[in-house]
């Protein structure tokens, strides 16, 4: 088992490394790597000042969303769940949309974080009001929160003027901007420790994936573990969403495809979902900023349009069961 985990992880890490190396070299402006090594040149500014931080954000965001999706799928024992199923991300969107509606576009990020926090608190309170946290209540509470948030977003959107309406729609499509390195550092400081924490409990997630009583009879406090998974997945989702807006598809497709090919062991799934989710979003974002350059395509459109057919192919060639 250990050998399989290492082989898959090394393979996934190589894929990510290739994506991280090539993506910054691609773009609307031609670039000479030799030029970029000389301080003060324009090429250096484009490569290290603009493209690299954006590529790094895409990697962190993709990895975080894939791991969040994986966790939520495990918690509700449904491989169609994604980071947006359990409500936190629509809470973030509502926060951001409210900010834009009120004309405080600059505060969209922090407001998104507040919206996510509010939903997280509410869903937790409702789902853990019984004796122990039930995944089913979690799912119901999350889906209801989603519907309410989306209704509120539609309502605000219908009242917004033309300019703000456009900004709202654009935000809801999701996109990665050119961030400063401090933002990259901040996102890394949230995402990496949370993913590491989840990985440490990988064996326990396997037990929980087989059922709550199954896990409890093997020494795991299922209720507490469910809570941990929900909060950790929500923190990952919220951190990414308040920077990029909602980016669909990736959060369920990466863990789902991975399970199809590599099985259900979380010791393999968590690192590989992170690495491959990261590579996936780096590639999609590179396509988003280059295909119609200088126009940018919303990256959420690329993730679904580009990867949907790929997944359908994967479904056709399922390994023998």
């Amino acid at each position, binding site marked *: *088992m*250990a050998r399989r*985990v290492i082989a898959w992880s090394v393979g996934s890490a190589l894929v990510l490394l290739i994506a991280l190396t090539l993506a910054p070299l691609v773009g609307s402006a031609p670039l000479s790597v030799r030029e970029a090594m000389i301080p003060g040149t324009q090429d250096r500014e484009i490569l290290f000042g603009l493209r690299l931080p954006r590529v790094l954000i895409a990697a962190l965001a993709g990895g975080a969303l894939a791991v969040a999706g994986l966790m939520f799928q*495990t918690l509700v*024992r*449904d*491989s169609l769940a994604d980071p947006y199923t359990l409500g936190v991300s629509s809470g973030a969107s509502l926060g951001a949309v409210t900010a834009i509606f009120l004309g405080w576009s600059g505060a969209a990020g922090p407001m998104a974080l507040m919206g996510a926090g509010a939903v997280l608190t509410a869903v937790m309170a409702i789902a853990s009001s019984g*004796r122990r946290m039930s995944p089913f209540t979690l799912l119901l509470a999350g889906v209801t929160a989603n519907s309410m948030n989306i209704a509120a977003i539609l309502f605000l959107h219908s009242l917004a003027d033309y300019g703000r309406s456009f900004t709202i729609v654009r935000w809801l499509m999701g996109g990665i901007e050119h961030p400063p390195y401090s933002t990259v550092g901040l996102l890394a400081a949230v995402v990496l420790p949370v993913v590491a924490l989840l990985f440490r409990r*990988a*064996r326990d997630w*396997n*037990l929980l*994936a*087989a*059922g709550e*009583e*199954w896990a*409890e*009879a*093997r*020494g*795991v*406090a299922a209720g507490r573990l469910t809570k941990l998974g929900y909060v950790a997945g929500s923190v990952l989702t919220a951190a990414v969403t308040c920077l990029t807006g909602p980016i669909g598809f990736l959060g369920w497709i990466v863990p789902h495809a991975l*399970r*199809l090919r590599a*099985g*259900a*062991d979380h*010791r393999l799934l968590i690192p590989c979902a992170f690495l491959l989710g990261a590579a996936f979003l780096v590639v999609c974002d590179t396509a988003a900023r280059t295909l119609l350059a200088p126009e940018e395509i919303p990256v959420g459109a690329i993730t679904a349009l580009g990867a949907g057919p790929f997944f359908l192919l994967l479904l056709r060639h399922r390994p023998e*069961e």
Partner: protein
Amino acid sequence: MIVYRLRAVTVRYGKTEALRAASLELRGGEFVGIVGPNGAGKSTLVSLLAGLRREFDGSCELDGRPIGDWPRRELSRAAAHIPQSVDLRFPFTAAEVAMMGRAPHASGMFESPDDAARTRAAMEETDCARFASRDFRTLSGGEKQRVVLAAALAQDARAILLDEPASSLDPKHQVAVHELLAARARAGRLVVAATHDLRLAARTCTRIVVLREGRVEADGPPREALEPATFSRVFEVDPGIWLGA
């Protein structure tokens, strides 16, 4: 030796009383069959012993310590529980499911060679090593039960608590499973199995506990516990149909 001591245990689900004032003492070396009609409280009793019911009236002690005071992990090394059915949604292989029985003993991220060897031995014993690498979800009901039973054996606990361990097995495997459980009991472990297979229980168990509407109706060696009068009162059928053969 492992000892369970239950005094006047009542378990409620909402307003329904699944167990009513049940008092029992169970010891290592016994193979206890828990029988009774549907809804008699068999599963509740088995899961209570496994520490999965933490709210009840009365007292349930394992080795002199209240079951609720046992740390979960320590308890799972003392008592292995397998549920009536395991419904997996994810592609774990049969070997991975059986290996989960080693979780209470594991410390690191990966199983040790010893864990792997014990799991393989348990799978040989329940005759499921042949399909170790198959997706658990694609197995038949009986094959699944044998894999889950292997997980319980690999757990290497002093008490083995089973909820209808043989309900989907073919006759050959039913007998084999009961024999291997009986052998475990002879070796000093406590085996408790909720079952509807009265004939097999009467043959292989050392003791039968008859439950009806949450109460212990009879408790003793199979011949006494399943004597015709009790039998027809509890099961509301003619015992001749079931046990006569």
